[in-house]
Each structure stands twice: as structure tokens, then as C-alpha cells.
């Protein structure tokens, strides 16, 4: 589906409102939307809502052979997908620029910043290392995918637990979660992306642009930072020319925002840890808002199965057995079998009146002679053997199959006759 184009009046309205320091949803220039983090039942699964933008993150791990040039390091694999439900413009199977750009930013933010200790993912140097796979799915696009994705990724990585491994000499034992508690990943710091959108050639700046604001912006500056005020990645796109003090100002704003968001993530992780420890219920089912009228829950419901057996028996005893039409297989040649007869060419062979027709006929007749069952043929067709056809006919077993040859010839003869009749009349 094509993206609905933005009308000129809407564009003008947005730009003018931004010039007057007003945003559509009433936020201030440096305000973030509400961030909500919920965790799933298994470790490493979380959903982050940044306003209405929703991202699902899932971490999984696998033991694989390490890369040749890095035998003692684990492997990190990132994959961000824009689901088709996130926006009508996203179509499956087409790698748009946006997907490539976002994936590259996620990789730079999390891999190049070395926030995860890959050395600790090594099990047997040169042979077995952990491959950590980060899958991010965008579920709803309401602007600022990058921030939501980076929050979801780092939160899920902090939440994830990998199976415990013990090495005794040559033997490596991987314990299941039931045998030994799984172990968290070793994470040095938490890089979080903060996006700044620029309007009117860099005159106005907004933090955390919504989808409408993204449509009218001139350029985007993304700064990935951790709470120790270290910049992990910085990217400026859109071709806007920024001054040095503008970039420095943005980095100061980013450090404030990152501190707030990091606190939020820590709180969410601690809450989840507490609930799991106390044995309470956790997971997406629990985090469904009960008070909303759009959400509804039903308790465990027993189903009455008292007379199921009798009902099923009645049904089976009342149905008729299937009619026996199992055709027996026919072996044409060693290695080839045929079940059933397939469809017959009912077009009448009246287009090419030359040799081709005769060839078709011979092929058909050869086929017919091999069949076990004789087709029911309209006995009223006159069995006339016309001369022109007979010459090209190859009769395989003249004694036994002559009858069928006649029948076939008659049906084509009949059709030919019908055709021949037409010009005559």
C-alpha cells in the first residue's frame, strides 16, 4: 500500500506550530512521550511503548563455532524488522532504505560500543561460543523508531539469562534451566539513542519526534549515549548543516534524557525481578490493562464433555462408509506408475490438420492401449475407419487391442466428421 501523502495545509500547519513552539500533542520541545516497558514470560522478551510506537524485542542464544579471526569472542546478531502491521507503507519482502538505516544504527549503537562483553560468551576457545541473537519487531509506527528500538534492545539484553555452562577438562556441560539457574549476560553499560529532529534548516529543534513531525522535518540527529555521559554513536542525516554549539547542546540534552530513561529501565527490571522471585504472576497476560473497556479477561473455563463419546459414536455409526473408488496403479514402464486416468483432451484436434494431428493421435492411442479400464464410449458413434488416419496409426497389439484402437479412431473420426460437415453445409 502506498503511504498516504501529507497534504500541504497540514505540512504548513505543523511547521508554523513548531515555529511558535507548539507541538500537536501538547509536549514541550525537550519532552519525551510516556515510556512503558513490559516483560514476557521467558527471559529476554520485552515490549517497549514510546507513546504509541511499540517495539517487541526477543533475545535468544545458541552455541556455534566462532569467527575465524576472533576465536575467543562470542557473536552478536541484530535484526530489526518493520512489521507490516506497523504502517500501511511497510510491505513484506522489500528492503527499504529505512530498514537498512535502522539496522545499521542498532548495530553501531550496540555492537561497536562494546556494551556487551563478548569475551565472556566464549565457552571453548576456537570451537564453541555463544551467539546472541537480538530480534526487534516494530509493531506500531508513531515516530522515533530508533529510540524505542534501542531501549527495547538494551532492556531485553539486561533481562536475558543464558544457560549455565561448566567445563571440566575436555567435557563441556550445558545445564537446562531446571538443573541450574540461567546466568545473565555481562553488560558494561547501557547505550540509549536519543533523536533530535530539525526544522527550517536547523532553526528549530524537537526531541522525540512523532510520526507527523518526522514527515515534515528537514533532518535528524541521533546520539547514542550511556548514563556515564559517553557518546557511543552519533549520526546526522537529512543533509542539514549543524553548527558545533548546536551539536554540543544536543549532547547535553541527550545526557539528561539518557539518565532519566536508564533509571526507568532499571526500575522496570527490578520490578520484574521482584515479581519473579516472589512467585507472582508475570508475563504479557498479566500486564494487560484490566481497567480499560477494550480489554477483557475470562477465567479458566471447564467444558462439558459428558456425552461426547455417545455423540461421536452416533455420528460415526450413521455415516456411510466411503465409496470404494481406489484405482489400482498401472505400471507403464519400470520406474513409472500411474493411478487414475487424468483428463482427456476434449478440444477435438481440429486446429492442425496435418501430420501433427496424426502424431497426436498415435500418442493418444498408445496411451489408450496401456489402460486397464476401457473408457465408456458413446456406442452410438459410427465406427467408420477413414483412410487418411489409418495410415499413420501404429497398432501395437493388433489382436487384443484392436477394439480400443477402433474406438479411439472412431471418436476422433466422429469429431472430424462433425468438423467436415460444417463446411459442407
Amino acid at each position, binding site marked *: 500500500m502506498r503511504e498516504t501523502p501529507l497534504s500541504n495545509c497540514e505540512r504548513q500547519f505543523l511547521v508554523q506550530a513548531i515555529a511558535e513552539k507548539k507541538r500537536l500533542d501538547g509536549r514541550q520541545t525537550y519532552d519525551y512521550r510516556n515510556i512503558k516497558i513490559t516483560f514476557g514470560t521467558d527471559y529476554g522478551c520485552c515490549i517497549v511503548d514510546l507513546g504509541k510506537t511499540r517495539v517487541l524485542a526477543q533475545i535468544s542464544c545458541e552455541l556455534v563455532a566462532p569467527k575465524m579471526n576472533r576465536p575467543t569472542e562470542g557473536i552478536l546478531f541484530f535484526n530489526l524488522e518493520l512489521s507490516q502491521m506497523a504502517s500501511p507503507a511497510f510491505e513484506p519482502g522489500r528492503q527499504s532504505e529505512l530498514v537498512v538505516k535502522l539496522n545499521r544504527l542498532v548495530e553501531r549503537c550496540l555492537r561497536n560500543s562494546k556494551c556487551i562483553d563478548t569475551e565472556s560468551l566464549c565457552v571453548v576457545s576456537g570451537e564453541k561460543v555463544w551467539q546472541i541473537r537480538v530480534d526487534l*519487531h516494530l509493531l506500531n509506527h508513531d515516530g522515533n523508531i530508533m529510540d524505542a528500538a534501542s531501549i527495547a534492545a538494551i532492556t531485553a539484553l539486561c533481562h536475558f539469562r543464558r544457560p549455565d555452562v561448566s567445563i571440566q577438562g575436555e567435557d563441556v556441560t550445558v545445564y537446562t534451566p531446571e538443573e541450574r539457574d540461567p546466568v545473565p549476560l555481562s553488560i558494561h553499560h547501557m547505550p540509549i539513542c536519543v533523536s533530535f529532529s530539525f526544522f527550517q534548516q536547523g532553526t528549530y529543534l524537537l526531541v522525540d519526534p512523532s510520526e507527523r513531525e518526522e514527515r515534515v522535518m528537514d533532518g535528524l540527529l541521533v546520539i547514542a549515549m550511556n548514563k556515564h555521559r559517553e557518546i557511543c554513536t552519533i549520526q546526522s542525516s537529512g543533509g542539514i548543516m549543524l553548527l558545533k554549539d548546536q551539536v554540543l547542546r544536543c549532547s547535553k540534552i541527550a545526557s539528561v534524557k539518557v539518565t532519566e530513561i536508564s533509571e526507568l529501565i532499571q526500575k522496570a527490571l527490578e520490578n520484574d525481578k521482584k515479581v519473579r522471585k516472589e512467585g507472582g504472576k508475570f508475563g*504479557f497476560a498479566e500486564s494487560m490493562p484490566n481497567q480499560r473497556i477494550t480489554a477483557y479477561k*475470562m477465567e479458566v473455563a471447564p467444558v462439558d*464433555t459428558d456425552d461426547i463419546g455417545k455423540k461421536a459414536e452416533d455420528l460415526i455409526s450413521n455415516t456411510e462408509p466411503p465409496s470404494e473408488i481406489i484405482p489400482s496403479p498401472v505400471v507403464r514402464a519400470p520406474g513409472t506408475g500411474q493411478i487414475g486416468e487424468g483428463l482427456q483432451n476434449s478440444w477435438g484436434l481440429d486446429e492442425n490438420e496435418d501430420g501433427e494431428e496424426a502424431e497426436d493421435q498415435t500418442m493418444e492411442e498408445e496411451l489408450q492401449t496401456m489402460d486397464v479400464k476401457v473408457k465408456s464410449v458413446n456406442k452410438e458413434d459410427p465406427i467408420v475407419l477413414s483412410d487418411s488416419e489409418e495410415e499413420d496409426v501404429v497398432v501395437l497389439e493388433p489382436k487384443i487391442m484392436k477394439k480400443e484402437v477402433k474406438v479411439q479412431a472412431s471418436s476422433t473420426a466422429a469429431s472430424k466428421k462433425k468438423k467436415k460437415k460444417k463446411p459442407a453445409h
Partner: protein
Amino acid sequence: MMQVTQSGSFQHAAVLREFGCEHSLLSRPDGSASFVQGDTTVLAGVYGPAEVMVSKESFDRATLEVTLKPKVGMPGVAERSKEQCIRQTCEAALLTRLHPRTSITLSLQTVHDDGALLACCLNAACMALMDAGLPMHCLFCGVCCAIDQQGTIKLDPTAREEKESRAVMTFALDSTDCRVMMSSTKGSYTAAELQQCIAVCQRASESIFQFYRDSVSRRYCKA
């Protein structure tokens, strides 16, 4: 008349897990719903009727596309086969002839798989289509049941129960007569067991349809 052998007692553990659903939780799609069965959660989003590519256009009806995405990895053959099952059920239920030369896109995302995934996808799909306001001539629901090694029928199995069972069956049933619209089965079972499973699922579908009605009336009724 076919011979029927009596297969022991008919004590079946027929209990549906805790259900939950939320409508209109995403702002971009025309209709969206999240359906939770125990721990299995599926999110569905519907766009339509909308513009269709000329290559996929159908002159007399709407073209329905279904996509199911797993949480980890690329979609494989299992997802494709589930998509076909869901697509055939939706095509049978939707009044596609009312919107010719348009497309209806249904996207499903597995949020957590703890057994009965295809049934949960069908339920989420039906709720999302309802939320989008697409005309249907009947509602449908998905019910999953498993036959374990002892021959007991277990309704709405968890992932562990599915693994340990001899046969797993998923049926899509319609709301008007509770008849089977689609069936997808795995494993070996007798004809009698199949009929028993269908009968159990039909009973279960009554509570599922009541759940649909209750959730919609909670949203739209003033009281």
C-alpha cells in the same frame, strides 16, 4: 454402517486456559487485537479494504493477504502453512465480494508461543477483523486439542503437552452452526477419536463465542 470399537472411558480433561483479549491497541492499523490463551499471545493487525497492486487485483472480490511472523528468525514453511490455513478460514468468513479490486492485509505476530498457536492466531484474526469493521457472514474461532498417549483428549494444550501427545488437532469453527471450517491435524488417531475431538471442540467454541460477545459488549455497552 461402520463398525465402532469402544475405546475405554471417555474421561477427558476438557478445560480451556485463561483467555484475554484487547482491541484497538495499535493506532496505525484499521483494526487490531491481541489474544492471550494462558501464556500464548498473538497480536493481529488488519488494513483494509485498501489499494491493491494491479498484479494481485481480483475483479470481483477483495484480495486477502495473511502474514504470520515468528518471534525469532525468518518465517519458514511452518508459518507459511499456518498462513494458508488462516487465509482460507478468513476468506470463507469475509464477504469479499462487497469490496472488489481492494486488498485486505492481515498481519499476525507471535508474541509468545506456549501451545495452541494456530488456534490463538485464528482467534486474534477474528477479533482484529471485527475491530476493523470488515463485513463477515459469520465469526470464527480456533480451538486446539491434543490426544495424549493414554487416549485422553486434552483441550487447549500447552507446548509441553503438545510435545508429549500422540496427535494435535486444530479446528476453526463458525459461529452460526459450530461447524468445522478448517482443520489442521498432526499425528495419528482413529476416526472415532477425530469425531470425539470435533465434538469437544464444538462445546469449547460455545464458551469462546460467549467470550467474544462479552468482550465486545464490555466495550460498546453503556452499562
